[in-house]
């Protein structure tokens, strides 16, 4: 199907280089990614900046520091770590991180959500965008997919890891708990699933929409090894947390990370509210927001 093999040479941010990368180098990518997100959603006056901005540190760290990635892209991803974005609405951060990593031209970010683009509102394999291995958007499906990919790795004798990201509101979907139960019951210990606990969803704070109690406790009751990242918008903490999670793999249990983030992080007027979950800034707001995130690597 959409499993064409694509030759890509990663640019400045290949893995070996990044192992030595200074934090402020990563921070530059973070800031540039924030700009990308804001400019993408502004242009089409649609899309989801809130969750994207909150997960920027995580996504930048994952792709530029944590994951062991091959050069190029093929669907099977044998011999490299894999990532699945279950909360597909935060596609802007995913696209920016993929493009800045070298999976596709950075200029293509300007086609986000336009007709005939590979950068669909929600990520998809359907248009052959390198870096994407599954469609998401309808919530709650990504952990099951990650589980399948993790099992395939085991069958293939491939000792690389599978990562996934999920919204906290998304965990209200029952399919997640099927997957969570399966992963523990079958000792899927090459999987690291992170929950973006920003405490917000479309209709308001999760505590008002549908109180979820202690998420970590729930994962533990289902048999997972769980750790928390107290501040998921602190790059150092995110990297430390992800490395800690990696060290806990291969021990018979799936590893979960509850990561506290601030929706809309990095743009003062987008923080501490759920209002920007799926709303784009207008011209004036964009300007204000960009001013808080000065250009580092060059706008697309």
């Amino acid at each position, binding site marked *: 199907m959409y499993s064409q093999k694509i030759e890509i040479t990663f640019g400045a941010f290949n893995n070996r280089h990044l192992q030595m990368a200074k934090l402020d180098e990563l921070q530059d990518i973070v800031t540039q990614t924030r700009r990308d997100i804001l400019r993408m959603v502004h242009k089409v006056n649609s899309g989801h900046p809130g969750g994207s901005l909150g997960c920027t540190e995580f996504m930048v760290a994952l792709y530029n520091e944590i994951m062991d990635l091959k050069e190029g892209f093929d669907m099977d991803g044998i011999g490299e770590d894999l990532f699945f974005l279950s909360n597909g609405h935060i596609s802007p951060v995913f696209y920016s991180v993929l493009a800045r990593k070298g999976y596709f031209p950075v200029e293509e970010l300007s086609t986000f*959500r336009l*007709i*005939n683009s590979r950068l*669909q509102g929600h990520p998809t394999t359907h248009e052959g965008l390198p870096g994407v291995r599954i469609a998401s958007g309808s919530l709650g499906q990504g952990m099951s997919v990650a589980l399948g990919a993790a099992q395939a790795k085991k069958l293939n004798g491939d000792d690389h890891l599978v990562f996934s990201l999920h919204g906290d509101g998304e965990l*209200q979907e*029952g399919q997640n708990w099927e997957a969570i139960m399966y992963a523990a019951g079958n000792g899927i210990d090459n999987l690291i699933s992170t929950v973006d606990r920003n405490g917000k969803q479309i209709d308001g704070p999760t505590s008002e929409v*549908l109180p979820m109690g202690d998420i970590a406790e729930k994962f533990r009751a289902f048999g997972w090894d769980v750790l928390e990242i107290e501040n998921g918008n602190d790059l150092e903490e995110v990297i430390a947390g992800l490395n800690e999670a990696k060290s806990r793999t291969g021990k018979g249990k799936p590893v979960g990370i509850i990561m506290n983030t601030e929706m809309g992080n990095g743009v003062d007027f987008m923080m501490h509210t759920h209002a920007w979950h799926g709303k784009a800034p207008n011209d004036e707001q964009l300007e204000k927001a960009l001013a808080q995130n000065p250009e580092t690597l060059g706008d697309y």
Partner: protein
Amino acid sequence: MKKYTDQGKNDTRSGYGAAMTELGRSHPNVVALCADLVASLKIQDFIDENPDRFFQTGIAEANMMGMAAGLTIGGKIPFASTFANFATGRVYDQIRQSIAYSGKNVKICASHAGITLGEDGATHQILEDIGMMKMLPGMTVINPCDYNQTKAATLAIADYVGPVYLRFGRPKVANFTPVDQKFEIGKGLLLNEGTDVTIIATGHLVWEALKAAESLEEQGISAEVLNIHTIKPLDEEAVLKSVKKTGCVVSAEEHNYLGGLGESIARTLAVHYPAPQEFVATQDTFGESGTPADLMEKYGLNNKAIEKAVLKVMKRK
């Protein structure tokens, strides 16, 4: 032909919301449910006025459908609402067992149906929901065409006893049906009389059909326009009466050509009066991101597509 005027563009979902506000006042047993999409469904007024009669289920559509079924036990009339994909494909088996087979008086109210959902793209653009819901025994399937009709349909289904699937959309479109038009479930509306071809349209495609008919008239073609807002039960009498007169038909719907209104019409004709038909619908593809207008153009869902289909089908008479 009869002229229809756009009374001002509006979204069909706002027709739903306005009717819910009225039902909140007139029907004490009406309750509303929503799965984390309140603003999109336009039911904030209902909630503000009837906080106890609203159930926020979070992002858990299966649980919402089951809860709606349960709420009927005790005499409530639940209006369970979310995006059309999550109101059908996500929860088909729940609707099937807990609502349709159990014969529960639940109204499944689905916004953002079809490709005109726009920028969110294919994962959200359900083009199979009419087909799914029409296959369920006992389900009534309604796809109104504008704000006024959606509002009227919402009011009408509250007084009808039985499960209903009500499908509406996101974009602001022409509002042209009379504000006081009574909504009769299962009764097709003859919007324009014609003799050369029948255009049967539902949902957002009805306005496009009217525009097509106007342009066809200028070319000397007399098109009958039938608004089938209720796909099930289908007004077979109205369909047959018109096609027997014109001898050919174009069906127009914001749905895959497989399984939808078009195939229901083809079946009706095959059983009663075989006649040439063309399908204005998506051609078995997923949608994609884009503006509603761009998408309707690209996927052949507008007046131009209808005109083309009319010219084609008339040659086949």
